[in-house]
């Protein structure tokens, strides 16, 4: 019998993504939605699921979820409800999770990323629903001491969790990782999640199978496997690649298409490992939670949330390139971060040139942000002041290089007119030709050799002359100095 030969194959990956929402309080109670602290310190009687307690919906969490839904082009349910998903596990205090079953808050959207092949790749979003997170089971004591039992930390329990489910529209490990990264940027842009991967704010579960075409043109479809709980983009990419290869190898070696199952990821060996078959899946016994009332989303509420989101990153990028005339690279950096984009737009609205402001943010701003290990969006600059600084440069009152950087740095601490700060720092330059000409004349009188060098064809001497004038007379505009010098030397 002929060996199985995989002539070609098609990869199908759908994703389930859990995003923890950065609300002040938990999903169904006023307990702080915080991280860290002593185990079981971020809890109250509702989080603990004590007898008699009742959940109360966190409206902000619903709003955050609707924002994500809108940004993903989803339909937003006009009417939805809460359901109980039952399963027994010690990190789930009530032994049911409040979730959404058949009426997700958001459904039928799409999200486009730049595919590995350079083409736009549109991933359909099946649904995004809101639920509460579980606690954590720990098998060693805080500090890493071995214990002969497990302990439960419920700090995470009750955190609002948005579960986004896509259709199986991704077709390569690289695209899977890109999708994850773009989604991270999106929720950060919307300000609904800190989306710090190492903190577990986002967790990914790719569902993977391959359609194999053999030497006879017959298509074999492997069973879908789900890799649980991946929380870095690198792992997401490597785990997806490993699982694709594993399914192909299994078919080639045994002819088996496998069974629907879940896998885990072992970072040490760089491989996925079998966890359980889906036939053993839990019987979740979903039913509507009688402790909560249905959620009605009206048009006015949606309009408010749309207005709060404002312009989406893609639209903003397009506008920066087309209307503001910024280069692609700069526009991408500025549009990718909500706060930075607002700073730029604010300064432009205050009358500054877009290119000048973009340069200030991307040169000085970025340098300072790097030095201080701050996100670019957290520079604490006022758009109006930034516009003033841009205007000083445009009016030749300050040099765009180091002096402007110094003023910008000061503007982060001090809310004062840029010109006042530049004056205080002694950075205002003069473009008045009177003193400049006087300085040039004095220099020429003192340095006849340089003059001869220049006239003899050593253009480099010009730079040295400008430097000498700038050193001698403070606050002169170097550009004007250079212009006047060239003119005067040319004359002679």
């Amino acid at each position, binding site marked *: 019998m002929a060996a199985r030969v995989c002539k070609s194959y098609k990869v199908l990956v759908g994703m389930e993504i859990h995003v923890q929402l950065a609300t002040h309080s938990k999903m169904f109670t006023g307990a702080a939605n915080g991280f860290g602290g002593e185990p079981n310190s971020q809890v109250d*009687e509702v989080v*603990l699921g004590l*007898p*008699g307690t*009742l959940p*109360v*919906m966190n409206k902000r969490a619903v709003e955050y979820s609707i924002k994500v839904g809108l940004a993903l082009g989803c339909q937003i349910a006009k009417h939805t409800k809460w359901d109980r998903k039952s399963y027994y596990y010690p990190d789930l205090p*009530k*032994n049911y999770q409040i979730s959404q079953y058949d009426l997700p808050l958001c459904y039928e959207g799409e999200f486009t990323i730049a595919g590995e092949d350079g083409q736009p790749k549109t991933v359909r979003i099946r649904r995004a629903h809101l639920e509460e997170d579980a606690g954590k089971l720990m098998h060693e004591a805080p500090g890493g001491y071995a214990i002969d039992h497990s302990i439960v930390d419920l700090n995470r329990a009750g955190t609002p969790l948005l579960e986004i489910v896509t259709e199986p529209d991704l077709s390569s490990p690289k695209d899977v990782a890109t999708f994850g990264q773009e989604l991270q940027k999106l929720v950060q842009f919307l300000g609904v999640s800190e989306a710090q991967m190492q903190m577990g704010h986002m967790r990914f579960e790719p569902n993977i199978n391959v359609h194999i075409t053999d030497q006879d043109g017959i298509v074999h479809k492997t069973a879908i496997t789900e890799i649980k709980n991946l929380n870095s983009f690198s792992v997401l990419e490597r785990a997806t690649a490993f699982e694709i290869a594993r399914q192909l190898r299994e078919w080639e070696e045994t002819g088996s298409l496998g069974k629907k199952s879940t896998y885990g990821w072992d970072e040490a060996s760089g491989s996925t490992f079998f966890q359980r078959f889906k036939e053993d899946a839990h*019987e979740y016994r979903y039913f509507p939670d009688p402790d909560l009332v249905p959620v009605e989303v009206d048009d006015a509420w949606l309009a408010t949330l749309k207005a709060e989101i404002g312009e989406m990153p893609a639209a903003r990028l397009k506008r920066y390139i087309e209307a503001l005339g910024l280069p692609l690279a700069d526009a991408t950096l500025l549009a990718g971060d909500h706060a930075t984009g607002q700073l730029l737009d604010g300064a432009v609205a205050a009358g500054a040139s877009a290119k000048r402001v973009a340069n200030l943010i991307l040169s000085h701003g970025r340098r300072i942000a790097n030095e201080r290990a701050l996100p670019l969006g957290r520079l604490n600059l006022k758009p109006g002041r930034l516009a003033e600084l841009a205007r000083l440069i445009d009016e030749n009152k300050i040099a765009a290089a180091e002096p402007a950087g110094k003023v910008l740095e000061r503007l982060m601490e001090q809310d004062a007119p840029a010109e006042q700060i530049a004056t205080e720092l002694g950075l205002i330059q003069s473009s008045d030709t009177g003193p400049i000409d006087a300085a040039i004349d004095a220099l020429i009188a003192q340095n006849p050799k340089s003059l001869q060098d220049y006239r003899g064809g050593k253009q480099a001497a010009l730079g040295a002359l400008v430097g000498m004038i700038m050193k001698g007379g403070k606050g002169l505009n170097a550009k004007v100095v250079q212009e006047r010098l060239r003119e005067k030397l040319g004359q002679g």
Partner: protein
Amino acid sequence: MPEFDTLISARDAIRSKQVSAVELTRRALERIAQLEPRIQAFNSVADERAMGRAKAVDAGEITGALAGMPIALKDNLCTSWGTTTCSSKMLENFRAPYDATVVKKLEAAGAVIVGKTNLDEFAMGSSTENSAFKTTRNPWDTDRVPGGSSGGSAAALAAGMCVASIGSDTGGSIRQPAALCGLVGLKPTYGRVSRYGLVAFASSLDQVGPFGRTVADTALMMNVISGHDRKDSTSVPSAVPDYLADLETPLKGLRLGIVKEYDLASGIDPEVKRAVDAAVAMYKQLGATIVDVSLPTTPYGIAAYYVIAPCEASSNLARYDGVHFGHRTKEPVNDIIELFSKSRAEGFGEEVQRRIMIGTYALSSGYYDAYYVRALQLRTLIRRDFDNAFSQCDAIVCPTSPIPAFKAGEKSGDPLQMYLCDVFTVTCNIAGIAGISIPCGFTAGEKPLPIGLQLLGPNFSEEKLLRIARMYEAATEWHTRRAPLA
């Protein structure tokens, strides 16, 4: 017969300084000490705490509509002191770290909670025999049950161990024991009283409500416990009327509905039927018009109830797994599943386990549509039936329980017989409407047993229902009789 054994008389006696709060509380505690061996109404008695609060009332430190009133609380309402057991081995030692909203409201009004009363485990039952700790006795005949599940609260009040008490009603658990113990018991409209801190049995059916000796006592209790609570999303943010204000004003043009289907219901005790018919005749004398109404889905009420309630219970009681709180098995276990199942098998009584299993089964995929979804469809139909009926009458009048108090042990071996005790009460919970039971007579014989009349009204009709109840009460003397206790 103890003095000042109604809420209003006790309140007035304190206000006029005829008696002190300390004296009133001392008498209640003495009465408990004296009768408790026979009645078995309390799971715990908070004597020291009660005396402390009574002293504070006398010192003027605590005031309010219920200042100094000895009140008993069903032991499924959480208190930040003592235990909250639900009469279950599972929660035998459970100490809640917080007060139920109703408890906060009672104490803010000055109530002196004397103790927490026995119930059918997790409020599942109609006789208080399903308690893991004790069987409460009916003060009118201690061979008989007080009804349930709020049997402890009913028996405590009927025995004069308090001047009013609090129960919870999921399918009749306030009204039926009120009927069997000769008291007034009100099941408020769903959402009228906060459920926060009421240990859930069936969340969409549970309501906290009062027992009183009189309609006015019940109205005063409603004034205190009603109202919206941010912590209970299902509580309703509408204003609470003063239920006492117009209580003495008879309702003009009162129309009372008689349900055709109830008349045909088999199993109504002839003495109950006679008493209820006489009560209807009395209302006619008082000027009421009697109209025939139809609740065609009534025969399915019990069936719908015994799907919805166990489904919700199976989920609500899932948290009792021996991990975070409550009973944990001391047997050796191999894994977490065994810890769960052994703890639950040991901690829950037979009736609770039966309902958890029914509910778990009915919610499972493949059965969900056949049972739960159909029960919810019935719920819609039952609500519609009531809406139709209430377009023709102000209230429906019927027996509360088809039978008077039965003997302990008589039905405990037959769950179906027990479930039929709820035939006239469950649809009220399914529809979410208000219902009240008032005394309307006694059986003949050596030890006469109380009979209860039920009045059902639309959502938020408590004010009207209380007035209708008061019209009858003012014309009769049943409420003045006391259980023959030494």
